[in-house]
């Protein structure tokens, strides 16, 4: 019995910690509600669809195919990205390019986002800097799996 009562101090301490959090946070919420500036926000929550967390510059988000200065894609269909891809989600079909300087281009460039694991190897492998993962788009969600096959036109942003 004495042992159990000995824990009483620790039990009260616990309740004091939670009540301190409660009153401090309530104070901050109240200050913010009345338009006053609180030292810190009352909650660490980010209200997602309205407020977004800033993305780090190195963050790997949805892919994009980079264009040349004249607007055509930089990709020369060298297949390095398709080779290095661990999820085998990139399909490239090569075609001849009218420009003798370039010679090859991709007629189809498909990424199956249902399989992509966003490792970024394709970006590292690309010798032409033709594919990047810097769009900042995180919500690559579709109604069906077929819609998750992003074609060249979807990726040229």
């Amino acid at each position: 019995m004495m042992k159990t009562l000995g824990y009483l101090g620790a039990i009260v301490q616990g309740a004091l910690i939670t009540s301190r959090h409660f009153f401090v946070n309530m104070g901050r919420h109240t200050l913010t509600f009345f338009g006053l500036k609180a030292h810190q926000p009352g909650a660490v929550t980010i209200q997602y669809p309205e407020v977004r967390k800033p993305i780090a510059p190195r963050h790997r988000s949805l892919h994009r195919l980079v264009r040349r200065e004249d607007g055509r894609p930089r990709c020369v269909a060298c297949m390095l990205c398709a080779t290095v891809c661990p999820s085998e989600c990139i399909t490239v079909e090569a075609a001849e390019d009218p420009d003798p300087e370039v010679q090859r281009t991709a007629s189809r460039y498909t990424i199956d986002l249902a399989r992509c694991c966003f490792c970024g190897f394709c970006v590292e492998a690309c010798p032409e800097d033709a594919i990047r993962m810097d769009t900042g788009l995180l919500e690559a969600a579709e109604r069906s799996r077929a819609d998750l096959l992003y074609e060249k036109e979807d990726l040229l942003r």
Partner: protein
Amino acid sequence: MTELLIVLAKVLLALVWLLCLTLFLTWVERKESAVIQDRIGANRASVFGLRLFGLFQPFADAIKMMFKEDFDPSFTRRFFHALAPFLSFFCVAVTIAAVPFGPAIRLGGRIIELGVADLEAGIPFVLAMLSLGVYGILIAGWASNNRFALLGGMRGAAQLISYEVALGLSLIGLVIAFPSLRMSSVVEFQGGLLFGFLPRWGILLQPLGFFVFFVAALAETKRVPFDLPEGESEIIGFYTEYSGLKWGLFMMTDFLEVIIVSCLAVTLYFGGWQVPWLGPDGFRFPWGGGWDLPRAAVVVLQVLSFNLKVLFFCGLQILLRWTYPRFRYDQLMDLGWKVLVPLGLLNILGTALLMGLR
């Protein structure tokens, strides 16, 4: 006829008060836990784009629960399976009848008690009804024909019966100190002064008794530090086989118990509807002076003070629920039988000695 109408109106008002407070408490629980944990809490439920800090969340929850499938497993004892949540709910909800909300008022030549039934044996009635609530849990566990449900039911029965003893013992000390078992007399008595300046509240007469009472009552609500009958993370508990509105009744019963325990704590230990130094015709301060108030204002103040005290205790219980982890089963039994029961006996002994020596 008018008598009957008055009783009916009282019953309705008390039930409406209880159920509204229950709905409000579900919101308070979400928000208070969120603020404790540095979160925001449910704030998306809206009516015509009006969010109001998520105050519509309880209604959204209620609508969701009503339209959920009330799944009836094929292997249950059907009648008892359906009976258990109602029994559980009824036994707790009926105790509100004995709680006085305010002083007696005179209205149109009648004296109306602000309480549904001012029972001669109010305290034993509440205790008895709270104990009967065990049957709801036991029947739910047994009739579900599910091992986990049965385990939860048995745990619930063992826990509630153990803590019932401590609860009863703590109240015996109070009954020795107070002149009556009638709730309204208990509250009247607490309107007096102790040593000429302190309000004569139960907490000042029975501090140890209040400690035992509050811990035992927390265990009676079977919420988190004492939620072994449910034990969400180990056994799902006695409502494993319940869904839809029947499960909702069990959940509401939990909140009702929180309110009833708050009402009891306030009525027995914190002066019920008494406001310190507020007499029937205004404030009379012990250091001299006073502040005359019309009778209606006094009644309003007193009813308001009862509600505020109840809200405070509900908030306190929610705070405790979000602070402590669950007891292990043997620790729970140790706390009940080896700590609270001896303390309760000690309290009775001390109270009896003091009353005898006086």
